């Protein structure tokens, strides 16, 4: 087990390295000169050249690349051109905001989604099962930025119940914070919730028709225990896999959701960084997203091994 875990951790390194290389190549391909962007249209050629030297952009590309990799290995992620602050500080400043909505969204999605899926599986072919599954299908098909617009239109513009954008602050009371979170969270949790509902239903259905569950029932074990203790445990592995995927895509979803609701998180920051050709910030944020993705996958694999001992990564197919 330990050997497998170590092997998986080692496998993450080339992945991150490739992400860094991709980001470096892609950012340098973005048309426009960051030095000129920083100084604005009035800057003279000499100023721009001086700025390039300051930012290290006058060096040949391969040297910039090596510098970047060496810096990252020393945990120095550079300084943002736009904010003139270390990239790590900027990420540390923004990440709580993104986590604030994405974690809440994920937890809500997990509870409601798995709940709905369980209900559907236990009441297969009932009216509510159909209703829930149609809703889940709509949920996975909905463009969340459109959903965001519609929610704002109904709840902010028409009804005036909730603020359309911004983050709110604790100084105005708890409700200010909560009310600002409701719409972005609703937007962000739609897809994971629908996905959880679908996967839970199918996984549960597979499990409850198993002989082992029939045997438990035959032994007179209470229905609650059969469902919540035995069936759910066996239905968990696919749900965990989906959970891992959804954590990763929640960050991606945050990019769109934050743009709609002007939420000051990682998503709005990276979109700004791209439009402003802030190489260091783009590289830093992308690497951060990739790191989260890789770590979550690693965690999921480990949980998978724990809850499903039949899975062995030793001789099996490498993922």
């Amino acid at each position, binding site marked *: 087990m330990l050997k497998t875990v170590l092997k998986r951790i080692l496998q993450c390194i080339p*992945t991150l390295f490739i992400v860094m290389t991709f980001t470096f190549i892609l950012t340098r391909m973005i048309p426009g000169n960051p030095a000129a962007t920083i100084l604005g249209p009035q800057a003279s050629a000499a100023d721009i050249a001086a700025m390039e030297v300051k930012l290290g952009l006058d060096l040949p590309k391969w040297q910039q690349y090596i510098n970047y990799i060496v810096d990252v290995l020393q945990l120095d992620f550079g300084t943002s051109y736009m904010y003139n602050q270390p990239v790590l500080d900027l990420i540390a400043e923004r990440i709580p905001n993104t986590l604030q909505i994405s974690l809440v969204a994920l937890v809500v999605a997990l509870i409601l989604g798995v709940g709905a899926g369980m209900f559907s599986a236990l009441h297969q072919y009932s009216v509510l099962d159909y209703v829930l599954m149609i809703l889940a299908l709509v949920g996975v098909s909905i463009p969340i930025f459109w959903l965001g617009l519609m929610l704002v239109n109904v709840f902010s513009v028409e009804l005036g119940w909730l603020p359309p954008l911004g983050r709110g602050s604790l100084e105005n009371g708890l409700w200010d914070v909560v009310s600002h979170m409701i719409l972005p969270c609703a937007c962000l949790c739609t897809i994971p919730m629908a996905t959880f509902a679908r996967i839970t239903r199918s996984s549960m259905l597979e499990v409850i028709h198993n002989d082992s569950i029939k045997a438990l029932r035959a032994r007179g074990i209470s229905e609650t225990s059969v469902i919540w203790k035995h069936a759910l445990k066996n239905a968990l592995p696919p749900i965990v896999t989906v959970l891992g995927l959804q954590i990763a895509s929640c960050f*991606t979803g945050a990019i*769109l959701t934050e743009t709609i609701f002007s939420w000051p998180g990682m998503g709005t920051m990276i979109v700004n960084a791209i439009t402003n050709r802030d190489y260091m910030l783009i590289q830093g944020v992308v690497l951060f997203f990739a790191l989260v993705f890789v770590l979550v996958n690693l965690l999921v694999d480990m949980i998978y091994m724990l809850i499903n001992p039949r899975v062995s990564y030793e001789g099996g197919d490498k993922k």
Partner: protein
Amino acid sequence: MMENKEPVTAGGDALGMQYSEELLKRERKANSAWNKLRRNKTAMVGLFIVSLMIFIAVFAPLLTPFDHAKINPAEAFMAPGEGGHIFGTDHVGRDLLTRVFYGARVSLIVAFGGTVVAGCLGVILGLVAGFFGGVVDSVIMRIMDGMLAFPFILLAIILMTVLGDGIFNVILAIGIGNVPSFARVVRGEVHIIKNEEYCNAARVIGVSNVRMLFTHILPNTISPLIVYATLGIAGAIISEAALSFLGLGISEPTASWGSILQTGKNWMDGSPHIATLSGAFILVTVLGFNLLGDGIRDVLDPKMKK
């Protein structure tokens, strides 16, 4: 009695044979993929939606009397139903229904195109990685992992900033972004298929690698690929809309569902119908492709049923 019985039995056997052959034929017909799909009601709803959208896209100019590009400020911001405009008009007075119909063309072309690009590249990489294994496999799959770790929308945003907007570039960006998932699916399949009996048999009689890949392995990866591609088109429609929504995909005056939605976003206050209706088309179409994809999966591979 004996004399009577014999011909009867013989006749009965012949009849029985004929009958069972008839049955077999009927069963074979009933179990053909198409007929199975036809019995799947939700898949049929999906197929209907998808066909309808393709029909709209192909025959857009014949379906509405309005010009999709003609600006007419006098008729701007008409609500649905006003002045003969079923869906109303947009901010410069173009008929919204016409825009949405023409948008179907661009959105579907981008979605199909992106999926084809992703499919072709992904299939080749997946085939090579799965078939040759070893170092080749490791290198290809690590690169694919790297791309997967890159959040898709970010990759697409950066690619669009590099390439500039336009239909072809959106196809390319969506295509490239989806390569890794196709490569993974195909690689997984190849891993299973290449050790099947018939592949070993082919190897024994000295079939070349290329022939092996394209005549023995590729055809057997088709069913998961069809499923994956159908669901991929749904995702690509959303991706196009997302990119256009961020102002990086297809922009005015070209109509795509995403670009109409992007325009509509700015007029949510007075004319929410622009964004509402274009987004509703996206939702329904994506739903259609998802239903169809789920249905095809159930038919082609009962083991994959979800």
